[in-house]
């Protein structure tokens, strides 16, 4: 396709190329800066450069969506799905970089962290356009391998190392199983291109394909953190540095769902009925188990790990129903989920000096009143309370389920959403409780003094200093807040984008 003098075919990968160049430049900076020169200023410049690269890439991606440009389906295929999924990945990258800046300020591994993060982002980028079993595998590994190192970045913390090893073993198990499944497919058809394979697989014997499908589901189930493939994941989430946890809860999930969309709707489409049932079961299991276990956690990061498992369950509703509306709703929900989830992690980072337990959030409102309010918004959006973005996501998703006769799945989903509120509100309750001198207050109150409007006269004035945070974290929080309110009030443009993304299904 030509527009003016530009041959657009070579520009298709411009967003990817931008991020790759940014990453390489950051890598070079790290190599050429000696440790002495590596001042705080240098790091900040790196962060700015990374952000600029991501923003440029985002702007280009948005342009491409408007053009509606689609290339042929080769090893990589730039189609509507790719065009759409670039946005969540770039937003994830942007937000994770923004929330990392404060957290890693004193860390020795700052440069390494940003480079590994960008490498994983590149991997995710290629996952969403990969259209060939080989390219899918390689891209997925590029997405995963840096995350194993990232999870263990906090070397002095035994939990981090332990979690990283577990995450590594589990991730490798998933990749290898998936690869084993792929090998059957290649052996049966002699090709690795998804479209050609789909044409040939229609004619072939079924048990072997079904077996390979099971392997693929096992492997991808680990990537998207679905129950029962979730074991040991929360350990990794808990041990990893918080920004890494934030990335782990979103990045691999986008990659996993992108691959599922590509593979299951092409080569495994003859088994649609079977995999719909499997995904329905996984969905119910993930929602229920994720929420139940989240309720029992004392550590916020662990709780959010289980919450992210539960959200995988909601997302799987889209695959269990698997019509156009449901799949586009799933993409929309993925988009909405990443914002609220990263927002919550931003606040957890803001509180990281106090600790990571739920009790450590006590009195958070006095330290950061603005962050406390935004945290309420983020948690409510995750739980799906109107009029925030999470509600619209769930509305689309569950209405798709009801429309296709999966009312039972929608009922399980909404009940789980209510259930999830009970642990999200544990954090909110802590944030708005008064941290100091509560003991005196409760003793006084036990005598059942009048608790009417004048009760407030017994005010407690804790002298807590308000800490200062760099503009990075605040920017991330404000972006997320604006996005979830805007999408909640006016979801149409984003829902339309998600619907167009599904048109790659011919």
């Amino acid at each position, binding site marked *: 396709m030509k527009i003016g003098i530009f041959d657009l075919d070579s520009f298709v990968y411009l967003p990817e190329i931008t991020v790759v160049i940014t990453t390489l430049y950051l890598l070079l900076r790290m190599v050429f800066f000696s440790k002495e020169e590596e001042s705080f200023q240098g790091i900040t410049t790196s962060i700015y450069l990374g952000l600029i690269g991501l923003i440029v890439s985002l702007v280009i991606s948005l342009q491409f969506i408007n053009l509606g440009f689609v290339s042929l389906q080769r090893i990589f295929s730039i189609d509507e799905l790719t065009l759409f999924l670039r946005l969540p990945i770039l937003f994830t990258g942007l937000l994770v970089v923004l929330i990392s800046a404060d957290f890693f300020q004193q860390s020795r591994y700052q440069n390494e962290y940003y480079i590994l993060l960008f490498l994983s982002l590149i991997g995710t980028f290629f996952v969403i356009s990969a259209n060939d079993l080989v390219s899918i595998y390689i891209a997925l590994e590029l997405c995963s391998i840096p995350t194993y190192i990232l999870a263990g970045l906090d070397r002095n913390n035994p939990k981090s190392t332990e979690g990283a090893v577990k995450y590594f073993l589990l991730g490798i198990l998933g990749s290898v199983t998936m690869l084993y499944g792929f090998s059957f497919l290649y052996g049966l058809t002699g090709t690795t291109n998804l479209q050609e394979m789909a044409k040939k697989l229609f004619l072939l014997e079924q048990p072997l394909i079904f077996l390979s499908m099971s392997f693929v589901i096992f492997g991808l189930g680990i990537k998207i953190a679905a129950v029962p493939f979730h074991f040991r994941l929360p350990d990794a989430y808990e041990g990893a540095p918080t920004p890494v946890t934030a990335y782990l809860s979103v990045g691999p999930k986008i990659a996993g769902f992108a691959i599922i969309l590509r593979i299951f709707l092409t080569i495994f489409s003859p088994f649609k009925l079977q995999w719909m049932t499997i995904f329905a079961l996984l969905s119910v299991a993930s929602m229920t188990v994720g929420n139940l276990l989240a309720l029992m956690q004392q550590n916020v990061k662990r709780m959010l790990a289980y919450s992210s498992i539960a959200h995988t369950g909601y997302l799987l509703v889209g695959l269990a129903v698997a019509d156009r509306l449901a799949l586009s709703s799933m993409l929309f929900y993925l988009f909405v989920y990443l914002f609220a989830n990263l927002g919550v992690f931003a606040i957890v980072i803001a509180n990281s000096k106090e600790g990571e337990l739920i009790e450590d959030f006590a009195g958070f409102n006095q330290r950061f009143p603005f962050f406390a309010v935004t945290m309420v918004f983020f948690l409510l959006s995750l739980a799906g*309370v*109107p009029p925030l973005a999470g509600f619209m996501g769930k509305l689309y998703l569950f209405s798709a389920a009801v429309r296709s006769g999966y009312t039972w799945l929608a009922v399980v989903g909404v009940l789980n959403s209510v259930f999830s509120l009970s642990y999200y509100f544990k954090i909110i309750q802590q944030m*708005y409780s008064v941290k100091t001198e509560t003991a005196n207050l*409760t003793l006084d109150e036990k005598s059942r003094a009048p608790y*009417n*409007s004048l009760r*407030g006269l*017994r005010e407690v004035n804790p002298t807590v200093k308000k800490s200062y945070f760099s503009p990075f974290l605040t920017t991330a929080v404000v972006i997320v807040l604006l996005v979830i309110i805007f999408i909640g009030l006016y979801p149409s443009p984003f829902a339309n984008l998600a*619907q167009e993304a599904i048109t790659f299904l011919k």
Partner: protein
Amino acid sequence: MNLPILSSIILLPIFGVILILLISGRKEKEIKFVSLSITCAVFLLTLFVVTNFDYRKSVLTDSKSVLTDSKSVLTDSNTSMQFVERYTWIKNVGIEYHLGVDGISLPLLFLGSLLGLLVVVFSWNLAYRVKAFFILLLLLETGALGLFLALDFILFYIFWEWVLVPMYFLISIWGGPRKEYAALKFLLYTLFGSVIMLIGILGMYFSARLNTFSILDIARCKFPLNLQALFFLALFIGFAFKVPLFPFHTWLPDAYTEAPIAGSVFLAGILAKMGTYGFIRIVLPILPDALRLFATPLAILGIVNIVYGAIVAMAQKDLKRLIAYSSLSHMGYIILGIAAGTVSGLNGAVLGMFNHGIIIGLLFLSSSVISERRQTWEIKELEGTSFWLPSLSGILTFAALTALGLPGLSNFINEFMVLLGVFQSTWLSKILIILVIPGMILTIIYFLRLIIRINLLQLGQGNYKGPGGLTLREWIVFIPLMVIVLILGLYPAPILNFINPAVTSLLEIVVK
């Protein structure tokens, strides 16, 4: 009339929230002044709607259309909606921003804006986290008033859940000793009900196949009975948790008693009406056959509410809990009136919703002033309060007499109309009326006991603090409520003029 008056009613409090956010938290006077002027403006706008509401319109247009097209009378309830604002919101799924007011929602709109204003006046002396408190009150007002104006299911649902979060914070920050527990219980229980309701709404949306969430448009399709029954059950769970009805009421005593008094007034005065309003606005026109099918169980639940609420109220030692259970008991009458499905039953129900809001406001507010002065909520320690606080005790006595159904005061009329409605009802057994009688007797007993203890018994031991009379601010709160009770008790026609035409035209659908 092209001014978006209803939108302004909803958006003004949000505007107020933004204003308050811009004010420093230390400038408490300014914050209170802003919220007062905002709620005042909302009330004035509501008054404007009331005075410009053409209550003859629905009757006239209906009778006109009888001559032209007999079909449209039964189905077209659009005609009775006034001040309509309708804009497309989310196009591809048919969600609209659709507001309108009719004779059923108008009294509730008036009630909501009046109580919203009075609660702000009443909370004037608050000193703890003032900024957050008034922000939450204004948010609550937006949600509560928006619900009564919404004519689109998704908008309805959004307002339905909107109120939960501010109410959660009101209870959990300014509440009593077990505030966190009560707040979370309230939130989870009502949310549980409302998501089931959402499934019901989605079911109706997809069964109607109109690609619209408009309540009025969906009311035009006739669902088969089995579907209606399913939708009814789903919606019923949502509404029953909110009202609350007997087996779903367990959050009520905790939330009502632990909430700060402003929260209790909002909970009992406005939020409880959302459930019964939902029955009238949604169930009656859309699922009439299901209502007929489930009328007797619904009526029995209403009666259980009346009797159970009264029995438990008898046993209370805490004045606030007593009022909470009396509210539970009174909501039963409204459900009974809806189940009767007759003109007088429904008139009684809507009038009852309005009257109950006024009375429960009066009860909660006056008793809170008393308990503030006496430093206790224990009824035993409040004995002989009238010797210290004659005017306050007088107001509480007045409220209690109204609540027990003394003829000449407002509550008597709606309870009488409800019972009349049950008697006229074609599908309810008349034996049910007999079952209500114990509830009525018990109500009289526990309120009379309260009156006797406060007014006639000798002064007990206890603390006493503050002025013996009422401050000007308190008079400003109590007088409008008492005047309304008196006027509606003697001459309810002004409000029935609004309610009756709307109810009548609504019932034509059901009877058909």
